[in-house]
């Protein structure tokens, strides 16, 4: 079984993002970049499936600038067998990413594609579902447990108010939620070994996919700030203020 995992290079989740003063976007130069945390979980799951003998090969795919090759090297150091970099500059929307991934899925004859449920930069939560639609494959989003059977997969999904278990035929698209697993750190020897693993580099323009953005970003602004609050000295004071000032009790 061949598994493709998508890995996106994003601003590290520990960085407090700053909106540029001219409203043109979020500051990304001289900011620490990392693999999207949900993609790390997707990759960890794929590597575990390989270690368990279920998967034969794990291919990490990243779409973005040349620098996304660093994210792919991290994926290779964690345990992916090979990497595919699809070079594309500028803003890439989920629809374009899904179209490019669909090409790779067909070229590679993948049996399973595992993606993070969303990227922590644009928070769209679309790529996996779009890819499933384009390929006409079944989808299982927000996975917190994955069991691969003979010709099917059973997935426990995190839904509003609890958990749902579904079974899909294969090939399928699975997007993963936070609690599926705890991703490993790449060890130093594995980081060294990763340098020798194969990485295919393609150009998005050569894949015959129109990646022109459909959404025009008119402005990016910081969120509205709340008005300053006040400290209260006791429970009585708090209850009184909630009743009279805030009017919420």
């Amino acid at each position, binding site marked *: 079984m061949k598994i493709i995992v998508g890995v996106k290079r994003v601003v590290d989740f520990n960085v407090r993002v700053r909106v540029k003063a001219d409203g043109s976007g979020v500051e990304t130069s001289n900011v620490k970049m990392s693999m999207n945390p949900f993609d790390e979980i997707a990759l960890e799951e794929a590597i575990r499936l390989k270690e368990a003998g279920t998967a034969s090969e794990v291919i990490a795919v990243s779409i973005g600038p040349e620098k996304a090759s660093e994210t792919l090297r991290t994926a290779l150091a964690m345990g992916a067998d090979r990497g595919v970099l699809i070079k594309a500059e500028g803003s890439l929307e989920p629809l374009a990413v899904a179209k490019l991934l669909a090409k790779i899925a067909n070229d590679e004859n993948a049996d399973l594609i595992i993606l993070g449920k969303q990227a922590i930069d644009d928070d769209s939560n679309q790529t*996996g579902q779009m890819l499933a639609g384009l390929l006409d494959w079944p989808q299982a989003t927000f996975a917190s447990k994955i069991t691969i059977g003979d010709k099917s997969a059973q997935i426990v999904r995190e839904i509003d108010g609890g958990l749902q278990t579904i079974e899909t035929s294969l090939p399928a698209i699975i997007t993963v939620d936070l609690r599926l697993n705890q991703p490993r750190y790449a060890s130093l020897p594995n980081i060294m070994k990763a340098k020798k693993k194969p990485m295919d580099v393609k150009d998005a323009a050569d894949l015959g996919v129109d990646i022109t953005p459909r959404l025009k970003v008119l402005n990016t602004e910081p*969120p509205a700030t709340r008005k300053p609050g006040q400290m209260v000295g006791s429970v009585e004071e708090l209850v009184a203020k909630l009743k009279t000032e805030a009017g919420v009790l």
Partner: protein
Amino acid sequence: MTSLILAEHNNLQLAEQTASTVSAALALDTDVHILVAGADCLAVAETASKLDGVSKVIVADDPSFAHQLAEPMAKLVLSMADQYDAILAPATASGKNILPRIAAILDVMQISDIVEVIAPDTFKRAIYAGNAIQTVQSSDAKKLITVRASAFPAIGSGEVADIETLTVTANNSSQTKFVAENLTSSARPELATAKCIISGGRAFGSKEQFDTLLIPLADKLAAAIGASRAAVDAGYASNDLQVGQTGQMVAPDLYIACGISGAIQHVAGMKQSKTIVAINSDPEAPIFQIADYGLVGDIFTLLPELTNAL
């Protein structure tokens, strides 16, 4: 211009997020239709037909829609998509699951989780977990939109719209099968739509103390109980109670954060609340920076005191 809303429901009740999505659809200056797809869901359709501003409710009642799996739902919506200029769903687990699949097949770039309608083709949405707000203009002929329900008022009800029943051919896709559902049953209000939420953090120290201190207080206020990710990871509360970027986004009238330090990802999920109260023993805790009312002290003495004072 006509828009179609995918109703959020459990075959028995219409979720309030649908009424908020109607507000967003009306801001697009469109006629609003609601699609209720489910099994034995006529009661839901009747509730939906009473929402103000809705001109038609379409019911697709078939066992294949019982769990609203993405594959049959997408097929159904695609079969009627031609008639609509916009297709909307609340940004719930279900809406987020279904709508992008439809968008891709229609070759439309979806606009996710909008918080404001500026014009029928221009919207505001939060990126970077709410740390930046983007204004985007769509060039697609058809708009596919998920709506952050907490950012729009729930529309009222009054006039009754027509209900049209759709004849659906059974669509038992072999791609996906429902196996089981394990929902937390509770008499409490739903976290996503509660008017008041009491949330607990790591400071509680155990599940027993989390329950002992928070349940009586929540009962007094008819509030939903929430938790920080730290409390969930420590096993004090179940996953579905988590408020934050990676959990539920909430915006109640009153949010009381108890023993929660105020990590960025938690704050992203609750800072739209109207009034925020923070109770924490650490006066330097970042949660106080966004609180309207802060009280420094020990939750183990202050919470019972608060429960008694109400």
